[in-house]
Every structure is written in C-alpha cells, then in structure tokens.
C-alpha cells in the first residue's frame, strides 16, 4: 500500500482524466505538470526544513539547543523567517545591472528543479526517465555557476565580484573530478540511465565496488554546492557573503534556499549512483522504496552538515591545488583501475 502510494496516486489521476475523456497527449502533459509541481513544492518545503535541520544539527554540535520558540520543536521557525524575508524590500544598488541582479535569484531554483525531474525517488517514481540521465544531471548542475556569476557581476560590488570569480573557478575545477569519478560507474553499468544504474546495484552498491570514486564524488560535490570546507564563495570572514552580499529580502532567501536545494541534489545523486538509490538493503523491503531513498539522502545531508560544523575553510589556492593535483589524477587513476578490473573479470569469465 505505502510502497506504491505515489504511483497509485498518479495512476488514479490518469484514470480520472481518461474517464473524463481527455485525449492521451493532454493526459500525459497534465500528469507531467503535476509531477513537476509536486517536485517544486517538495524542494521548497524540504529546503525550509533543511535550514531548520542545519540549525538544529549545529545547535547540538555546539552544546546549545537551536531554534525552539516558533512551533513545536521550532518547526515553524524557518517558515516564519521566509515569511519575514518575503515581506522585505529588495534593495537594488544604484550601480547594479538591474536585469542580471533581479534575474539571478529568480533563476537560481531552475537547475535544482530540472535535475530532480530526472531522479528516481522510488520504484517507478521518476518524472522523466531519460536514457542519458546522468549526463543531463551533470550538465544542469554546472548551470548554477552562471546564475551565481550573474548575481555577483550584476551587484557591481567588489566583494560580490571576488565571490563570483571564485564560484566560476571552483565549479569548473571540481566539475571535472566529479564527472570523472562517475565514469567508473558508467563503465560498470554501461548506461547513463539512472534507473538502470540503480538496477545494476541490486546485488552490490557501487560504494563497495567504487569506494574511491564515491569519496572523490562526494568531496567534489560538497565543493560544487559551496559548503564548508569549500565555502569560499561565501566565506563570510573574508568576502562577507560573496555574490549575495548585496541581496536582501527574498533575493537573499532564494540564494539561501538554493544552497539547501543543491545539498539535496548532491545527496540524491550520490544516493542514486553509489548507495543503491531506492533499493532496500538487507532485504528490508517492508519499508517503502521512496522512504529508503530519503533515508539515504538524509544521512548524506547530515554528513554534509557535519562537515560544515567541523571544518574550517580552505584557501583559494589550496582549493585549486587540491582539485587539480589530487582529485583529478586520482579520479583518472580510478577510471584506469576500473578498466583493468573489468578486463580481468571478463578474462576469468565471471
């Protein structure tokens, strides 16, 4: 019952539209729109909840309680925060490039939404089952760079400019090890379809067969979403708030929530590629598949938060050095070793 909760809802909707005499094409379109809206709502609400989770995690790590005033256990705190931020004016600096400045926070949620459309949340729960899913996801993930750059450039502030320069440099240098690390998985599966990647992990998660790839992927992914220890883009003790320095009100809130949306994305991607996606481990199939997916995702999100509240910030040149001198060669070596391994396996005829 719970297992097929969402697929049943979708099926019900389809039947309803069918019986109302809607032509099949319109039926499909409506269903897709419904799915995308559901994902959008999910991302927004989840981002809100993640802000609270972060504050609670930070609180408990730092011998304090965290927000506990608004709602039970502080559950409504972030909702109220966003409510407050919506009611605020968005100040536009006089010398700013108005179009870019306002466009950036509006666009910042587009890549997360588009990526989530292709990620399988559970059994038969994928809005868009693309056969180049992985390629699509990576291509869109790097799109965020441009949006941050737009915000930083449009602000016409030296701190913002420095921040956005850092964004571009950081994202470009960490995209490479991230994609190269996944190459090993693609070689093993022989497909870029996310559903097939999950299916290939039926017996063994790729974190076991590709542990180094997982490490590289996760480190590079943390850098991709600008989290500590790679939060140079914001680096509040250096460049105040990087590209978001000039933003106030909802403009700021959008960037802020987008950060959590991108944490969700990298965790969802790591779950799909390395942790078996919605597959239940140890045959614990009585827990619905989508719940497994979220469990794994939240564990990874917690790890990312754990990083944030433990590590100091790395320096720009060290960041570049780490990316190009350690992660890229390591991920290339991983591809090489995977290739040799596959060849040997085939030779012994497994």
């Amino acid at each position, binding site marked *: 019952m719970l297992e097929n909760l969402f697929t049943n809802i979708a099926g019900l909707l389809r039947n309803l539209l069918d019986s109302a005499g809607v032509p099949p094409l319109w039926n499909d379109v409506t269903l897709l729109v419904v799915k995308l809206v559901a994902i959008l709502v999910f991302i927004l609400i989840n981002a809100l909840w993640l802000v609270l989770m972060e504050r609670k995690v930070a609180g408990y790590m*730092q*011998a304090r309680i965290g927000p506990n005033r608004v709602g039970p256990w502080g559950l409504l705190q972030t909702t109220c925060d966003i409510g407050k931020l919506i009611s605020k004016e968005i100040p536009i600096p006089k010398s700013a490039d108005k179009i870019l400045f306002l466009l950036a926070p509006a666009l910042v949620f587009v890549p997360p939404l588009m990526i989530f459309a292709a990620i399988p949340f559970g059994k038969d729960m994928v809005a868009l089952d693309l056969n180049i899913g992985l390629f699509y996801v990576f291509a869109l993930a790097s799109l965020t760079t441009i949006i941050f750059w737009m915000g930083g450039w449009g602000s016409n502030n030296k701190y913002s400019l420095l921040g956005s320069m850092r964004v571009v440099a950081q994202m470009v240098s960490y995209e490479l090890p991230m994609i190269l690390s996944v190459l090993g998985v693609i070689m093993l599966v022989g497909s870029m379809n996310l559903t097939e990647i999950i299916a290939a992990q039926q017996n063994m998660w790729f974190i076991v067969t590709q542990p180094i790839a997982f490490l590289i992927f996760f480190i590079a992914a943390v850098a991709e979403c600008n989290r500590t220890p790679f939060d140079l883009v914001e680096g509040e*003790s*250096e460049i*105040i708030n990087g590209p978001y320095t000039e933003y106030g009100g909802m403009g700021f809130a959008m960037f802020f929530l987008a950060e959590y949306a991108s944490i969700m994305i990298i965790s969802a991607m790591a779950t799909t590629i390395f942790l078996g996606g919605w597959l239940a481990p140890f045959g614990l199939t009585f827990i619905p598949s989508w719940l497994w997916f979220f469990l794994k995702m939240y564990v990874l999100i917690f790890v990312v938060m754990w990083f*944030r*509240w433990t590590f*100091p910030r790395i*320096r*720009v040149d060290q960041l570049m050095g780490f990316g190009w001198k350690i992660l890229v060669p390591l991920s290339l070596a991983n591809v090489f070793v995977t290739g040799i391994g596959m060849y040997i396996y085939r030779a012994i005829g497994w």
Partner: protein
Amino acid sequence: MLRTETYTMNFGPQHPATHGVFQVVLTLDGEKIVKAEPVCGYLHRGIEKLAESRTYQQVIPYTDRMDYLASMLQNWGYVMAVEKLMGLEVPERAEYLRVISGELSRLASHVLATGVYALDVGGFTGFLLCFRERERMMDLLEELTGSRMTFSYARFGGVADDAPEGWLEKLDKLMDDMPGYIDEYDGLITGNEIFQARTKQVGGLSPETAIDYSLSGPVLRGSGINYDLRKAKPYSIYDRFDFEVPVGKNGDCFDRYFCRVREMRQSVRIIKQAIEQIKEIDGPIKGKVPKALKPPKGDAYAEIESSKGILGFYVVSDGTNKPHRVHVRRPSFINLGYLDEMSRGWLIADLVAILGSIDIVLGEVDC
C-alpha cells in the same frame, strides 16, 4: 589589449572579521595583497585625555573600556602605576586576589581569541565551544566583581572586595576541568588539517623584526623570543609561582595561535598554585590609603603582561587629585604596526588569518 591593474578595497570598518570597527584599505592584485593600510580610530574615545579631568579613582572604570576582554589586567596596570607613584604597599591577600582574577581574565581573553580565530578561518563550532567555557569564567568573575566585562576590581593598595564564600572552590573546580577543555580545542581546532594548512607558514615574522617593531605578547613569543614580563621582570608575586613561558618556533600564524593555547595551560597552573597558597593567607585586602588621593609631584611607569602583550601605564602627577597626564602603552595598537608588511603578498583569506593571529581588541587599539 588586455591588461591588469590593482584595485583598492575597503576591508572594514563594517566587516565580520576585523574584530570590531577596524578598517584596512587594501590594494589588491586579484586576490593578492599588494598593500594593506590599517586605518584605526573609529572607536577612539579619548580615554587618555578624559583621565586628565578625572580624579585618580575615577580613571579606573575608563581603563576597563580599553581592553574589555581582559579588563582585570587593565585595572591592574593602571593601579600599579599609581601605587608606584605614591609608594603604596599592597597586602599579600590582595596580591593573590589580583593574580587569580588577572589570570582568570587572561584565560577568558585567550579562550575568546582561540574561538574567534577558529571563526576567522571558517570553523564555527570552535568559536561556540570556547564560549561555553568563557561563560563559566564570566559567571565566576561576575560573582567576584558584580560585573561581567567591565570589572573595575582593582583599587589603589588592594582590591575592591574579598572572594565570596565558596568562590575559590568553584574556581578550583573550573581549573580542574580546564585542561580537558583545552584538549578539546586542540582536537577540534589546532589538530585540524585544514586549520594547519591555513595558518602554518602564513604571515611569517622574524624575531629581529618583532623586536624592531616593539611587538609583545604572544605575537613576540610566537617568533621564538622568550620574553614574558611575568618571568623576565616579575611584578606583584609572580616569582612565587612555577610556570613556563610557551615560545613558538617559526613566527607564523599557527605559532602565535598555539602560544596562546599553551599559555592557557600555564594560566591554569598559576591559578591552581595561587588558590593553594591563598588559603594560608588571611588578612586585609586593602592597604592603608588616604581618602583624598593626592600623589606627590612626579611620574611613574608600570608595566604588566596583559593578554595581548606588554601593557604599560605612564602617570604624571602635578600634586593635585587629578592626574596631569596618563599615557597607555597599548599592546594591541603597537602589535598592529607590522600588519602591512606582514600581509603583503598574501591573499585576502590570509589577511583574516594574520589579523586574527595578532589578536587585537579595538577598544585598546583606539583607546
């Protein structure tokens, strides 16, 4: 035709990492610092000038407002200069209370410096962990003096009040816990790979330069010079305690930071010994001091080792009940003198690390 040029950036006065209202006008080449010009004075209140129109006693609260993170030591320095001027005797118990409260204040200041340094290089948890212990110290100091930051505890010829009942035991308990807490800082902050990468070999300061620029405190000792007034010219009763002066080796940010961490352990040692010794001493906490304080004509200079460095008070008396001139040698201000050269060629992120490792308090810099 492509060309590059340097640009200026105002680092502060409204900036999260300048430890107050401090400005550095940076000339940058990309992110690299070509020139860093410190601009201070945003918090200038003219304390030295104000002192000239106040009676000697009335100046004590002003000294609190200079280094408000270790104001116990500021009171002590000023009071010592006036005592020297008048030739006042301080009872033994008062000396012990001064050492205990002064070291506790130093501890509180160093704990904050450690935490803020963690925050400066991007680690937020270290900052709040340090606040956890600082809170206990603040509670104790509040119990002793009635105030959490501006203590005004020292008086001419003694201290304001004796320790309340059970206070020394509570302090002893905290001192027992403190080494464990410092181990925690070492684990979370000092031992962190990224922290070390950020601070080691950054912002080097050679021993010769440190002396030439008259730097003092952990900044000087981080460069490998063993000069702590408590050991070099023992004032008060510091010759009665057994403690070491931690010294760095390379004179980089990490050494300056680590000097402070190790100094905390020494402060704990001093307080432990002082608590042990004060138990046997009973007596007044204030010497015989005339009601109307009129020091004889002349001048006196007294210096103590504050948490930031050598804190000197120069007091000139013209025979009236108001000082003719009070001048303060403020270690934070003098330690800032080398900031420009120290940060040239480093990145903006390093400037934050360097500034944090000097550990300035703007109240003292601007006076």
